[in-house]
């Protein structure tokens, strides 16, 4: 009975702790320690180091979409819509969600491990003892870097995906690149771009909040096993949150 109650109550308690963590982060966001000049280096670390991965993955996804859509569109007699179908899928859906999951695996797990390691080696305690709020100095810039990086990486993912789709269309199916591009341009409008942008901002926020929060609130980090557990849990929870948010945003936004 007690075990069952604990199983039910623990996630609620953890959600509450994460909510309080977020409120505290927002409260200290305008302070001096939060503007201590680490944002640029974090953007480089989180953003540019994920660049190659994002471009390669985007290219492959675009190429795969072209192959899939070509068969389907040919069956329905609209192969000329190949560019529009690839672009729409990338911009509205696959770009933000896949890019978020890639960044989560590449940078989110590293951020969680970094903060958990700092907790375990008393670096967070040391900051607090220096009179520096660790939430302001460590968490705010990292969260901001996640939120800013993801839309930029998603845009590059989309461009790489369109390039992949266009090349497959041209090489495998004989569709001239200009026609694929023209179809892509006519297939998406401002609402689609806005949808992709909002999704990537929300996913970036969820990624940062969950990875940083789970690591920051980790009760005891005493070794590599604890580090692996904290970062693994953070990635799993953030993945589910991103996919859940993807459904909600797709259902709610125009």
């Amino acid at each position, binding site marked *: 009975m007690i075990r069952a109650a604990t199983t039910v109550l623990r996630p609620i308690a953890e959600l509450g702790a994460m909510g309080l963590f977020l409120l505290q982060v927002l409260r200290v966001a305008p302070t001096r320690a939060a503007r201590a000049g680490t944002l640029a280096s974090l953007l480089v670390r989180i953003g540019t180091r994920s660049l190659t991965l994002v471009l390669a993955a985007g290219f492959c996804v675009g190429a795969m979409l072209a192959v899939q859509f070509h068969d389907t569109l040919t069956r329905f007699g609209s192969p000329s819509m190949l560019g529009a179908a690839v672009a729409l899928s990338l911009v509205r859906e696959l770009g933000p969600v896949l890019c978020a999951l890639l960044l989560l695996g590449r940078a989110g797990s590293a951020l969680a491990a970094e903060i958990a390691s700092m907790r375990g080696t*008393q670096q967070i305690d*040391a900051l607090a*003892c*220096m*009179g*520096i709020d660790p939430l302001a100095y460590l968490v705010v810039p990292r969260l901001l870097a996640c939120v800013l990086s993801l839309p930029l990486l998603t845009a590059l993912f989309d461009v790489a995906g369109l390039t992949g789709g266009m090349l497959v269309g041209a090489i495998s199916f004989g569709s001239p690149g200009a026609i694929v591009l023209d179809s892509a341009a006519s297939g998406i409008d401002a609402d689609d771009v806005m949808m992709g942008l909002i999704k990537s901002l929300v996913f970036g926020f969820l990624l940062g909040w969950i990875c940083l929060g789970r690591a920051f609130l980790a009760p005891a980090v005493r070794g590599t096993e604890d580090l692996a557990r904290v970062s693994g849990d953070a990635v799993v929870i953030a993945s589910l949150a991103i996919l859940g948010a993807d459904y909600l945003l797709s259902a709610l936004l125009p």
Partner: protein
Amino acid sequence: MPDRAAPAPESLAAVTGLALGFGDRRIVEGLEFEVARGEIFAIMGASGVGKSTLLRTLIGLAPPATGAVALFGQDPYALPAAALYALRRRIGVAFQGGALLNALTVLENVELPLKLNTRLDRATIRIMAHLKLELLNLREIDHLYPSQLSGGMAKRVSLARAVVMDPELVFFDEPAGGLDARNAAELDELILKLRAAMNCSFVVVTHALDSAFTIADRVLVLAEGRALALGTPQEVRALGDERMAALFGQTGAGQRAPRAAYLDRLTAGL
């Protein structure tokens, strides 16, 4: 002429009726002591008696199970976050493993409290950090990252960072922990040098008996879940209690300290 009593030494940190523990389990209880301005106060005891937990409680990182803590007359656990951070700017803490920020060099680690807590310009901050590094003989390694430092160096850098804001009270967790006899003795000398140069007080948590007896003005001995002794090193040595003898490995008056005895045994066959 009325008698003029000497003013009581100002208390920088004080605990009353303090008990530490996790959940229902008590590690240590019934603690009562004060740390006076200018003194070096050592908290001694074997591993696991709650020395480091007591230090964390004193600096506002681990609430006590019962009892009260006062730092500069204020209860750190009753203060809002901003006031607690302001209070902590009056102390310095050197952690056992150094707790240096891995992404920053030695110099940047030492500069950090000044950068974020003062409005000094960059050049002044650099000069002040260099002064402290010089004081602790670390000037030559200011460009290194924490991963490139030995354990002893990391402790000294941690101490430099702890004193860079000229605190009134410095907490040092296990200065001798993990160090050889020579490095441990050097750190003891640095603590005495810093006290003389900066007129600050120290609370040193240590399991090294000879280190505590060398540098401390007063010693608190923790054992068996309570304060076994509190007094000057001479007073503590002279207690002659059987448990003290057991704790100290028979380091009573006229006896050899464990490290000296160990070195004697080690070099006996040479």
